[in-house]
């Protein structure tokens, strides 16, 4: 494959925020789809080499570059929200679960820390607030939805169930496997537990 096209194809996979279809890639590299498929096959093989940290995988007829599973856990803390504390997560869960919700409801449920949580989450672009009576009405941002892939209470419960099932399986097989980067993180993973205990 042409050196320049190959580089461009690789750049596209690297830059994309989600899996890309052959069609999309073909448009970028200006090659027929069949040729693109061949190129991708080559690239997949190349990345299979042991010294490579990423892999190119097919997800539902689309292609994505991601960290190889064995390395995933070691670099997971480099992602944008890996540093969310337990308290913040709790507040965020409450917002997803009970929306529409006001700041006062949050404070009533989890105490005065709620004010800080709301402020912090808003600064991180995960929620937006709007003055409502004497409090603030809270909404999830589009950015939250696209990053967490959760928009409602139902999604949250589903995710929660899936998580529990996975944990049960893991406990049964008793094997220590690193979770996949896209899989929600499990207990005790990194982050600032300390902040929460201090409360």
């Amino acid at each position, binding site marked *: 494959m042409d050196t320049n096209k190959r580089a461009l194809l690789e750049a596209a996979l690297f830059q994309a925020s989600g899996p890309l279809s052959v069609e999309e890639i073909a448009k970028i590299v200006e090659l027929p789809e069949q040729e693109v498929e061949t190129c991708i096959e080559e690239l997949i093989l190349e990345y299979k080499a042991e010294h490579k940290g990423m892999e190119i995988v097919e997800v539902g007829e689309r292609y994505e570059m991601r*960290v190889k599973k064995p390395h995933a856990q070691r670099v997971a803390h480099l992602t944008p929200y*890996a540093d969310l504390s337990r308290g913040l997560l709790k507040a965020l*869960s409450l917002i997803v679960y*009970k929306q529409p919700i*006001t700041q*006062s409801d949050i404070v009533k449920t989890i105490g005065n820390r709620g004010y800080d949580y709301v402020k912090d989450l808003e600064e991180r672009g995960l929620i937006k607030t709007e003055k409502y009576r004497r*409090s603030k009405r809270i909404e999830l941002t589009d950015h939250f939805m696209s990053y967490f892939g959760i928009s409602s209470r139902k999604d949250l419960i589903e995710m929660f169930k899936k998580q529990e099932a996975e944990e049960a399986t893991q406990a049964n097989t008793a094997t220590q496997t690193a979770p996949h980067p*896209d899989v929600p*993180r*499990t207990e005790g993973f990194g982050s600032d537990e300390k902040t929460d205990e201090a409360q």
Partner: protein
Amino acid sequence: MQVDSTIDEAGIVDLASKEASWEEVLEYVIREEGMDPWDVDVVKLADAFRVYVTKAGVLEFKVPARLIMIAAVLLHMKAEVLMWEEEQRNAAAAAQGPPIDITKVPELQVPAKRVPTRRVTLDELVSALEKAFSTQERREVKVERARERVEEVVADEGFDVTKKINELYARISETVEQLKSGTMPFSSLVTKWERREIVQSLLGVLHMSNDGRVTLEQEEPFKEIYVRVSEGKEARVEEQEDEDFSKAETIESQDSKTSNDRHSKKEE
């Protein structure tokens, strides 16, 4: 409240006597010394300032101005926090519905998704630059206009501040003698209520106040200023004026600016 930082209230007074602006003093104390503004005791700050004043032979007027600003900002911050907390407590009390059982809420898991980013383009930078430029320009134009308006009045060629003071002082002494209260409103000193006359009269009384010949009182901004002849100062006359003026020059130009703004507002 404990204070971890090495600087204390006396240190702040010391800084205020050296720094160029009150903002820089506060910035330094908070950023560099790691002092929580909440921990600054405004009463101690005032005490430290009293000590400073007693020790200092000559007082530069910018220093107290800076300190008053610092104390006011700190007080304002504290008041805001207290008010905010109060408001939030009320709001929380007014929240509708039964309390939520947090243990029933499933906990969200954070996906460890990578976020690929692209470079900002030159075009984007240029348009951000444009925004910064226009905001800055608007701000500068505003300041410049205000300055021009003040200068226009102060730099009036026929205006002789010494003459104005003598004239005002004569009128004040005369009027105050007749009044039981011992004070007269500034507005009655201004012969014609228009910007030029207001600013020039104000300059005059500020000079006198600076000399200690009169004291000025104003209960609220934009409200009436009351002029009172300082006790035992009546006999003090013009001889000293020249040297006193040079000392007062710097602070006077600043004060007159703000006062002018206030009075022009009053006019509106």
